[in-house]
């Protein structure tokens, strides 16, 4: 082998790469927030008394979980404009990530809600709270706590999935590094660096979730 490592293009591109990391963070955090909203809303509808609402959620979850993320993002970016909805790459990526992550979050959260004993709900109802109040003030937090490790790994996965948004040139780490690579042909150096960056980003996400968990779920259980 007579390949000589040359990190000069990577070092020159470092400001761009770091800014792109921030872009990845923005996509991931926004996607997670949307996924959380979809997840919680979906669980509420999934356990609704009204059957068509339940079917709607089941159908949504099945469609999203059984189709590739790349196709979903292409659908929003290329197909929806034909129906009059034209979005920029970054909002497209956030919506796609939110919808995709939300479908998985619904299933995870459903497990959490089912783990809450019937007695908790009955105690809330007996105190005169409405069903929605029982869900919001009594069920939700312990349910989230019960599934928080699964939710964390799902959301770390969502963070890594942001790289697929490079296919529509959203502003994030993979697409910026592709540009540096195609200008310099220094594939090894560029992707080595990017791999290290993704590892750091994932690690930071996990720390963030652990921090959140320690603050929000700090109550003792038997």
């Amino acid at each position, binding site marked *: 082998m007579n390949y000589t490592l040359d990190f000069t293009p990577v070092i020159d591109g470092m400001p761009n790469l770091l800014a792109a990391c921030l872009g990845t963070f923005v996509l991931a955090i926004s996607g997670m927030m949307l996924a959380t909203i979809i997840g919680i809303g979906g669980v509420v509808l999934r356990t609704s008394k009204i059957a068509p609402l339940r079917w709607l959620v089941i159908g949504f979850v099945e469609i999203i979980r059984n189709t590739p993320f790349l196709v979903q993002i292409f659908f929003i970016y290329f197909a929806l404009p034909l129906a009059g909805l034209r979005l920029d790459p970054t909002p497209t990526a956030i919506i796609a990530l939110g919808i995709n992550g939300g479908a998985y979050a619904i299933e995870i959260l459903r497990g959490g809600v089912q783990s809450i*004993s019937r007695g*908790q709900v009955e105690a809330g109802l007996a105190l005169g709270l409405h069903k929605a109040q029982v869900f919001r003030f009594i069920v939700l937090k312990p349910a989230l706590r019960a599934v928080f490790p699964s939710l964390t790994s799902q959301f770390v996965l969502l963070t890594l999935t942001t790289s697929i948004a490079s296919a529509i040139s959203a502003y994030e780490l993979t697409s910026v590094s592709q540009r540096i690579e195609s200008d310099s042909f220094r594939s090894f150096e560029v992707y080595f660096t990017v791999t290290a960056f993704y590892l750091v980003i994932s690690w930071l996400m996990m720390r963030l979730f652990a921090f959140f968990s320690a603050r929000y779920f700090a109550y003792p259980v038997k």
Partner: protein
Amino acid sequence: MSDISTTRPQAEAMISMAGVAKWYGAFQALHNINITVGKGEKIVLCGPSGSGKSTLIRCINHLETYQKGEIFVGGTRLGHEAKSIDAVRREVGMVFQQFNLFPHLTVLENCMLAPMRALKLSKAEAEGRARQLLERVKIAEQAEKYPAQLSGGQQQRVAIARALCMRPQVMLFDEPTSALDPEMVKEVLDTMIDLAREGMTMICVTHEMGFARQVADRVIFMASGAIVEEAPPAEFFSDPKHERTRKFLGEILSRH
């Protein structure tokens, strides 16, 4: 008459159940239940397991539906629609066998949640009320702790305080001491006796016959989903009329 009941039962009915029947599919869980409970009256409901006692009191705040008959609580007819269910639940407190405290809320927050959300009290009002009632069940110093940090007896006393924070007119107790270690039964029963002394209308499903003797105005014995016998405690224990009652009392009293 019970030896400590200071408020005489009044003619005014706090709860009345007329012809209540309930089925689980083909299985009939309650048969033609007729009960009237006066204001301030204390009822102990006993019977073998599966006799329908819990199902009966759970009908009173509509945790269970029923298919036949009528229930009135404090003059409000308990229908199957949300409005009357809400109205009744605000007047009826319930204490469960498994305590059912909310694990993610402190003792104080457990007591404040429903007054703030269901009665729309301000935070300060709800807290004042909660601290006062925690004082009354002698657990005020644990207000900032979480349920998992308390003993079973303490948890059950918090559950009683939590229910009282809604200022209910009636308290339902569903085997409140059955899940407790023996040494904690007394503290919970003492709390219930205090409550009875203050004139609360109470229906207690319990096997604590000492409590029944001391507190109850009437003991109701159920078997197979029907009321078999109903009498003041002195008469109920000394002179049970039905064979099933005698058998039940024989079994339960020989255990103690």
